[in-house]
């Protein structure tokens, strides 16, 4: 298979090869070219939760992650917060139009399911309602 420039930028060469392996035979046999989308981030999800379809696509480079609920966009904002009081060390957290005051820690290791947890809480908050267009507005909190 070939690794395009986007793959290299997204993963670095070594992890891109690992990601391609993890993606399995279907990806390889699809005949990867420069036009083939980059492999999925292992943190991505596309599933049903409490009767709603939730989809999450991570953007490792720019942290502009995307979440939708029943096909409607949920605006996501990534912030940095201290890991503890009086600490200068920070971690990434995600909030959204629906979980606006409740940061979900998110990283590529032990908090890699942060965006999924956020999406599930957003579904619970919605109940039998759906997202409006306003929920999809992008807010740059950085």
């Amino acid at each position, binding site marked *: 298979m070939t690794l395009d420039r986007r793959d290299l930028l997204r993963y670095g060469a070594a992890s891109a090869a690992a990601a391609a392996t993890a993606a399995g035979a279907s990806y390889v046999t699809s005949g990867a070219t420069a036009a083939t989308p980059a492999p999925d981030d292992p943190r991505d999800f596309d599933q049903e939760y409490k009767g709603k379809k939730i989809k999450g696509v991570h953007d490792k480079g720019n942290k502009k992650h995307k979440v939708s609920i029943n096909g409607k966009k949920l605006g996501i904002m990534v912030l940095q917060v201290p890991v*503890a009081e009086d600490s200068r060390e920070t971690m990434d957290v995600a909030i959204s*139009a629906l979980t606006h005051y*409740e940061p979900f820690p998110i990283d590529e290791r032990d908090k890699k399911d942060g965006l999924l947890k956020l999406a599930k809480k957003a579904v619970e908050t919605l109940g039998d309602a759906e*997202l409006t267009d306003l929920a999809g507005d992008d807010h*740059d909190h950085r």
Partner: protein
Amino acid sequence: MGTRKNARDLTATEKTAFVAAVKALKAQAGGRNYDWFVSTHMQYFAVVNSHRYAHQSPSFLPWHRQYLIEFENALKVHNPAVDLPYWDWTVDRTTTSAPWTSDFLGGNGSGGNGPVTTGPFAGSANWRINVSSSTSTSLRRAMGGTLPSAANVSTVLGVSTYDASPWNSSSGSGMRNRMEGWVSPNIHNSVHVWVGGHMALQDSPNDPVFWLHHANIDRLWSQWQTRWGYDSTRYLPGSGTSGVVDLNEVLQPFTGVRPADVLDHRPRYTYA
């Protein structure tokens, strides 16, 4: 000068007057009506003109102080006797205590995340949600979790430095980020989450309890000022910090109003 009282101490007449004024502002056609306040909070939660005005910044406290003053003045157009009450969640901590009574803000949502069913804001015919991230036109609440304790508040009020670099959600020291809640012991954010429903959303002012919660946050800042000083040197940063509202920069969209102008609230209102 107005006196902002604890919601639990309001008379029946005061409760009725507050609810009526809030509903009159909701019904007001045009101008800075209730939904204008909802939209403004949504807009200024984000970065505007490369500045963080309302949240994740030192101006969290003065921006909301002025926002509450503007809201209170808008209520006074309909009834000059109305002052904002506050909800002290270190004392009233259950789903049936003040202010969640049927003669005031009504109770919890039904079934965990459903519409409020009691009180004057129950159902879209009584209180219609027009500007929201959710398609629900009825006010919702989903109370539960953990409210800040009096000990948590005491800890935060004991932090003498107002705020600290980098002046945003990642500030590890200083009082403001602890009060706002991006660092432990998380005061303001956790109350939004505890009420749930619309209070958890970016359009949180749709729930009238927003004003009572923020009046309490403002009261706690007032207590901090009483302890550590009302003078302008207590607000940080003083000047020259890009992307942040310094002491003498304008708190948009409140034309001409700077943090320096709102630090001493005592000529305008006090807390009982």
